[in-house]
């Protein structure tokens, strides 16, 4: 704000108008620090993360333990969110299900963006036939609906948590590869890369030392966008019963079970729906805030 006040001093005759101007400037310069739309969602996410990571320590009934006294029960003592259609504790199932969602949500984008980055760097740096082949593979990848790819994988490879992470990660390859390719293409023509080449640096070294640091930021922003998407797709997959195998609970799976009794016991579908919606929304809000901040910082640096 220092330079604003000094600029006002120069023309400090018409008092009220200047004050209005100063306000307008202040609004324009509104510092882009993290506001409540970052911190409130962040708190929710931390809460969810703690609940899920330390799930075994909360003294909850096991997620697959059937309480014969309370089957399809609304919230009662001992079952704060009620029980599902088999009499299993809802809170416990939602928390244990959250472990699956969060694991996939973080692992899949890292796998996908990592692989996509490698492909994109190869295509963008070497051009030629490598570029052409990778381009066709990516187009082919995009031509099949993501869910169909996952269905295929779930049939062929079965539903372990690891395979779900990997096959979901594969979905993020095309876009990540395209972004990387464009950025690599851009940077590989720059002077500092040419200079490194002239010094006889190996291709690998150039990619790692010169290009990678420049393209990593948009990719990190991209991972942030992908986390909620991965959670949503995992939800869809487990809703169809094609994610991790039952009886391991997952949010989509609980919602699917709740759907069967939506008319009589709406809470079974609604609780996981609400929790999942809030979590995904908060990931979106936090990701968006960080992405803007990254953009600001980089703008300021240039």
């Amino acid at each position, binding site marked *: 704000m220092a330079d604003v006040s000094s600029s006002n001093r120069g023309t400090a005759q018409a008092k009220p108008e200047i004050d209005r101007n100063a306000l307008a400037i202040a609004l324009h310069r509104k510092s882009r620090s993290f506001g409540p739309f970052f911190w409130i969602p962040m708190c929710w996410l931390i809460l969810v993360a703690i609940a899920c990571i330390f799930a075994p320590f909360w003294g909850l009934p096991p997620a697959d333990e059937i309480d014969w006294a309370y089957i399809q029960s609304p919230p009662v003592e001992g079952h704060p969110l009620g029980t599902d259609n088999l009499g299993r504790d809802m809170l416990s199932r939602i928390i244990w299900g959250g472990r699956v969602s969060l694991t996939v949500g973080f692992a899949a984008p890292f796998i996908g963006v990592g692989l996509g980055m490698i492909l994109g760097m190869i295509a963008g740096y070497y051009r030629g036939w490598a570029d052409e082949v990778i381009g066709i593979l990516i187009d082919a990848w995009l031509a099949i609906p993501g869910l169909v790819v996952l269905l295929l994988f779930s049939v062929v490879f*079965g539903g372990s948590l690891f395979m779900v992470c990997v096959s979901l990660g594969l979905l993020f390859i095309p876009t990540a590869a395209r972004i990387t390719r464009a950025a690599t293409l851009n940077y590989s023509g720059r002077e500092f890369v040419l200079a490194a080449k002239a010094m006889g640096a190996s291709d690998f070294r150039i990619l790692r030392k010169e290009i990678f640091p420049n393209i990593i930021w948009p990719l990190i922003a991209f991972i942030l966008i992908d986390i909620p998407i991965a959670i*949503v797709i995992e939800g869809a997959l487990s809703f*169809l019963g094609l994610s991790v195998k039952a009886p391991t609970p997952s949010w989509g799976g609980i919602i699917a079970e709740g759907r069967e009794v939506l008319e009589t016991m709406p809470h079974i579908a609604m609780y996981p729906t609400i929790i999942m919606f809030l979590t995904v929304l908060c990931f979106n809000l936090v990701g968006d805030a960080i992405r803007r901040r990254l953009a600001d910082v980089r703008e300021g640096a240039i």
Partner: protein
Amino acid sequence: MRYLLYRLRRLAIVLGVVTFITFLLVNVLPGDVAYQMAGMDSSEEEVQAIRDELGLGRPVLVRYAEWVGGVFTGDWGKSFISDENVWDAITDRFPVSFELMILAQFLALAMAIPAGIASAFRPNGRADRIIGGLAFASVSMPSFMTAILLIFVFALGLGWLPATGYEPLSSGLWANLRPMILPALSLALVEWTILMRTLRVEMIAVLQENYIALARAKGMSNLRILLVHALRPSSFSMITLLGLQVARLLGGTIIIEQIFGIPGVGRLLIHAVYTRDFIVIQGCVTFFALAFVTANFLVDIAYAWLDPRIRTGGAHG
């Protein structure tokens, strides 16, 4: 024209790659078809017999070539389970999925265009913020969750629309549309946000153009400037996206058809996945890829309508 030919060739290659990879996945990797068909406790001889019957013993490339040849002559194979002709099974169900997709895309556009225009008119204004917030909530709500909420409110709560089911067009237009509204809305409520954001970004840029300034200087009303002068030049990315979204929508219909009990291709595929009916899976994936490729080709043609520079083949940039 040359560009169009290049695109066609590229799309053909893409189709080849897609079908080949799918073929490899369903035929070579673990979970052998013959094992699946023979059942858990069958002997090795039984499995081998089925293999021989299906011709699985021969090299993959040969079988793939046979399958491709079949596809071109309209023989997409027969279901292992129901013995139904795969091509017939798909074409019987496709119109249903197609109707759902068109309805969803239509609803999404009907939401996205006014919302995008309203946001772009005053970026960071009140309308922009409200619409942006709604969009944020919307993308955070996957279609299967939206579907369940919609069923809960409009079918179970208010009883206005049926929760599941499908009526053919022969029982009347309204009878046909009524059960389609909630499924289409479930898909549209996710898709509209991407279209809206794309339109908004491009329109904000277009509204900075000199010809918009000239339209203002001509005394045109804001509404006319937005709809007549700015909308069409702002729609290019959105139209491209409509083509790319076909893949997403096809994926979306799978789950939505499952929830609402709509007999489309998506349900056929899911059923085939549950029963490990590989030849049907292969057919469905090929069909989806074909639909995607066609949709994107149509998008290329739509450009010509949007941009007179392409249509008239103008030489002056």
